[in-house]
């Protein structure tokens, strides 16, 4: 029998790892992966509260989060491809000009 706080702690750790990766990583793809990690941490919070409250609304919300994450991944990776095509780099420190 697992208390709710364990699940919340795990999701907090995952979210913190995502924030840390977002801040310290310099590769744009790894930054994007960190965002996905944060979304996963939040999803775990939703599911654990849904189990605690015996309500299915959290599951529905996780479904919508996954849909938005999939759409975001498709558009974001397209933007990354477009940036790489013009800049020839994936380092966000080198992408610092608005014009080409």
């Amino acid at each position, binding site marked *: 029998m697992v208390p709710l706080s364990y699940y919340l702690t795990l999701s907090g750790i995952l979210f913190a790892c995502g924030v840390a990766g977002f801040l310290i990583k310099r590769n744009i793809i790894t930054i994007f992966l960190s965002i996905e990690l944060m979304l996963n941490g939040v999803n775990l919070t939703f599911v654990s509260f849904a189990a605690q409250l015996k309500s299915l609304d959290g599951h529905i919300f996780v479904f919508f989060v*996954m849909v938005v994450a999939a*759409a975001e*991944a*498709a558009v974001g*990776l397209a933007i*990354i491809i477009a940036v790489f095509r013009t800049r020839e780099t994936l380092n966000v420190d080198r992408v610092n000009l608005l014009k080409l």
Partner: protein
Amino acid sequence: MLHLVLFFIFAAVCVGGAINLLAQRHPINSALSLIVVMGSLAVIYLLLGAEFVAAVQVIVYAGAVMVLFVFVIMLLNAGVEERIAHGSRVATMLGVPGLIVGLVIGVWVVSRLTGLDKISIGGPSVMNGTEAFGNPQAVGHLLFKDYLLPFEVTSILILIAIMGAVVLARREE
């Protein structure tokens, strides 16, 4: 007892994968460790009785989204991340510890102001994931009755995302 053991095993795998994501320098290694995190999260969803969410986690997240990521990493031939040495030393040394201290103080202040710390969660109420109330049938009933309009809106969102991805990634003539 079995639930606790399984939770600790897969939570350890989860945290290990998340830390490995930060430690690796090559994006493909980070992507593969994120797949490990998502797979073990699916098992944790099963422990919580969320069968539908666990299946969707494996199919959509660990399957489709991560395949897209790995595909783009391979396509762009992404190498080991390079570091450009600039920026102040003080920010490098104090950045992460300062951020952690700031977050802890912020959480403390908010929980004191809103009385969140008075609510005890997870004390007497424990979860036994034996009753799987999140099976696809129940979720489907809710999704197609109460949440029908948001569900249809997400399909339009996906359609717009597909068109946007095609337009953005198209090579300009």
